[in-house]
């Protein structure tokens, strides 16, 4: 499980393009390039203003569109040139249509009777790292793994959402107590659980420090279901916590 933030709505630049084409009720065999390019670029701007990391492919398609647009603007030579070159949109259109047919194929596959969803068999299926309660393949984490994971989570957080430090006094001890309380109540927690609702930058850091401290004191343990898996925090067995 990778910590990718993807724009859920679009599966990529081609998907976005198809969406725009559909939205504008455009005939895919006769795309008004100027219009589509403008809308596409507008979308990219919006996505970037939201501070989302765009896959490079979005930019590649942007330049492709602009390139096509410029070719279409060139004066059409009634003679040989135009005919030889053909419609500059053609390659893109073919790519779009091909992508669309696979998109449909994917929907087609999903509409079938799927095993373990619509129909069930008697067999036992050993699936890839599922999020089961007692996963014996858990790897106990080192402190370094935890810090690396923390870095990843924080870098994914929308920076604008991390508020300024408010004046509230808090201490590491408070955080430690909070975590221990939650763990005793909920038995096990995901690393992301502890961090996801926090907005205060200082609180986030304190929470991490608290986790590290508790691990050092061997009062809690952290497990990961394989590389890049979710991280679980549990109370260490036999540890008698404070209050």
């Amino acid at each position: 499980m990778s910590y990718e933030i993807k724009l859920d709505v679009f599966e990529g630049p081609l998907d976005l393009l198809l969406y725009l084409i559909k939205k504008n009720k455009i005939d895919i065999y006769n795309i008004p390039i100027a219009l589509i390019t403008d809308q596409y670029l507008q979308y990219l701007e919006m996505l970037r203003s939201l501070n989302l990391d765009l896959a490079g492919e979005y930019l590649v398609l942007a330049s492709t569109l602009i390139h096509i647009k410029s070719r279409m603007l060139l004066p059409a030579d009634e003679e040989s040139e135009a005919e030889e070159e053909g419609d500059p949109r053609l390659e893109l259109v073919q790519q779009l249509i091909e992508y669309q047919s696979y998109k449909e194929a994917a929907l087609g596959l999903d509409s079938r009777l799927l095993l373990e969803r619509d129909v069930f068999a008697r067999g036992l299926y050993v699936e890839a790292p599922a999020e089961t309660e007692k996963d014996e393949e858990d790897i106990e984490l080192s402190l370094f793994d935890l810090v690396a994971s923390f870095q990843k989570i924080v870098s994914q957080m929308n920076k604008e959402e991390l508020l300024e430090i408010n004046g509230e006094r808090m201490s590491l001890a408070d955080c430690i107590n909070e975590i221990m309380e939650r763990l005793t109540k909920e038995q096990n927690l995901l690393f992301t659980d502890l961090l996801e609702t926090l907005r205060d930058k200082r609180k986030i850091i304190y929470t991490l420090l608290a986790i590290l401290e508790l691990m050092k004191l061997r009062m809690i343990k952290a497990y990961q279901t394989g590389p890049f898996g979710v991280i679980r925090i549990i109370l260490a067995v036999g540890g008698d916590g404070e209050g």
Partner: protein
Amino acid sequence: MEELKMILEALIFASEMPLSAEKIAQLVGEEDRKAIESSLQELLLEYRERQGGIHLEEVAGGFQFRTRKELAPWVRKLKGVKNSLTPAAMETLAVIAYRQPVVKAEIDNIRGVDAGGPLKKLLEKKLVRIVGRKDVPGKPIIYGTTRKFLEVFSLKDLSELPTLKELKELEER
């Protein structure tokens, strides 16, 4: 032949994967292949007529007992809801299913994005496998679907995949 039918039924039930007629023939001994075939057909018919909670289905080149789709809500209560494939993974899977054997670069091109993540997931779930390496510079890995893919998507074999609509239209233009 009644006993043969019983044996087949028991074998198919006990098997964790769809059981092929060949495998059955192996297990049962040098039994007359025709006899096995006809017993299987009888079994299929019986279960169909029984109209019970389980059917005998032919998938992935073999036979398997499966619950009736109308009863899914009940069985889900028992088994819980499994995490399904993301649209990206489904698209990647579709490309591989229809174009196999295929290399990653081809998949990337068709979808317009990197297929690395979905590909890894599909390999983990054993829906997709490495078939070999292409004999070109770089020796890129070639991918194809697995038997499990057929099983999960309730296909007898790859030829059962519906044809790609739009591609046909494009060719006709």
